[in-house]
């Protein structure tokens, strides 16, 4: 009897470790690094998540040739943050699916490969989690092909900017024009956009379309995006309007509904002069540009 109890106790102690070793072995055979698999198995077991379940999405990512350490890190993060096991697994599985979709999009883009493929997949998967669709990414890829030296890093950074704007309530479809323009710029320009949007809103900016228009115009004309926020509250829309001509030769703020007319007195409005003398529109625009009348409210 004593011997049987001892055997049962031994089995109870050894069985979980053996099960964990099996799960780790399966993951390693799928292509997961031994160290990663062992760490996830140990820590998931400590926090109420079965090692088999925890390692499944990591092994699945490895089998698909994806960076499975990203999925492993997301699981460890959830465990460390005390998320419920079901939530951790759902997040990990969702990440694995988005990584696969991102990988397929980059592979079919016919663009030079990203500088850091692992980072690019993480960024693109993150963008997709916020509603940036396959169609939107393909539109960005098409825009990058139109640019000299267009590359996947710029596409990924632009997609990530759209995702971050979506997280702030801006639908990706609304920001797609800005995204296309950003594919012609270095990735750093795109990475500034969410912070600038936050800063603009903190300054009291409300007209999101005006922000997107001005940022797009700056991106298209090669201007710095940093100056887009009017920190001093001089303009009603809290934007510092770019005065460089855009690709059609028109002066940025004179075009569209968020133009030079905002914040100007009746005598300063260029449309009054434009209407009075047919055919002089271009000259008036040029004059407005030369004198800087387009900046709303600026003396």
């Amino acid at each position: 009897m004593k011997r049987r109890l001892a055997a049962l106790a031994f089995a109870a102690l050894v069985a979980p470790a053996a099960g964990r070793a099996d799960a780790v072995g399966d993951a390693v055979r799928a292509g997961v690094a031994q160290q990663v698999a062992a760490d996830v198995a140990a820590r998931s077991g400590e926090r109420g998540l079965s090692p088999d379940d925890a390692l499944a999405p990591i092994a699945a990512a490895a089998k698909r040739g994806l960076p499975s350490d990203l999925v492993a890190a997301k699981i460890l993060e959830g465990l460390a943050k005390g998320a419920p096991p079901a939530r951790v697994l759902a997040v990990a599985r969702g990440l694995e699916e988005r990584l696969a979709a991102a990988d397929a999009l980059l592979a079919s883009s016919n663009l030079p490969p990203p500088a850091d493929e692992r980072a690019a997949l993480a960024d693109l998967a993150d963008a997709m989690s916020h509603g940036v669709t396959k169609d939107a990414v393909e539109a960005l890829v098409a825009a990058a092909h139109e640019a000299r030296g267009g590359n996947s890093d710029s596409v990924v950074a632009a997609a990530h900017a759209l995702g971050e704007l979506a997280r702030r309530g801006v639908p990706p479809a609304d920001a797609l024009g800005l995204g296309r323009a950003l594919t012609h710029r270095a990735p750093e320009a795109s990475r500034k956009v969410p912070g600038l949007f936050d800063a603009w809103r903190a300054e009291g900016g409300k007209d999101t379309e005006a922000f997107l228009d001005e940022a797009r115009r700056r991106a298209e004309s090669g201007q710095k995006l940093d100056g887009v926020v009017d920190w001093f509250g001089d303009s009603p829309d809290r934007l510092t309007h770019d005065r460089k001509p855009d690709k059609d030769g028109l002066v940025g703020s004179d075009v569209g509904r968020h133009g030079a007319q905002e914040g100007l007195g009746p005598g300063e409005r260029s449309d009054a002069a434009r209407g009075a003398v047919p055919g002089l529109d271009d000259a008036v625009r040029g004059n407005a540009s030369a004198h800087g009348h387009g900046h709303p409210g600026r003396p």
Partner: protein
Amino acid sequence: MVKRVLATVALAATACAGPAAEVRPAPRGTLFRYARPADAVSVTGDMTGWEPRPMARRGGAFELALPLPPGRYEWRFLVTRSGDTRPFVPPEAERVDDGYGGENAVLRVPGPVSVTPGTGVTAPEAARPDRLKDRALPGMKTP
């Protein structure tokens, strides 16, 4: 005019106070620095396997240098004050949704790049056009 002066004064005051936190390259790796009152501060993230790594007190700040290979890392500070530990993501950092109802900061450690002759296209020396290989998470412990 008054608003402009006030804004300038606020900007100057902020500049004098210095950032609450910063991350920058240092001789021994990437330096994480937290410079606000706290009893203890840790760094946690992809690079530590999400295990808190305590920072050392240096004067009025907390610092930790981590040797990080080039890559993209999600991370945040854990700040303990009066027995209460809270996550802190520097407001000026690039931030992403963590999927668990919070946010992480993103750190990008640049790698060496090479220029493809005649194209001007830059690509990392370690670029792998074929498949990705697994990378062990730095700082992860084996049981």
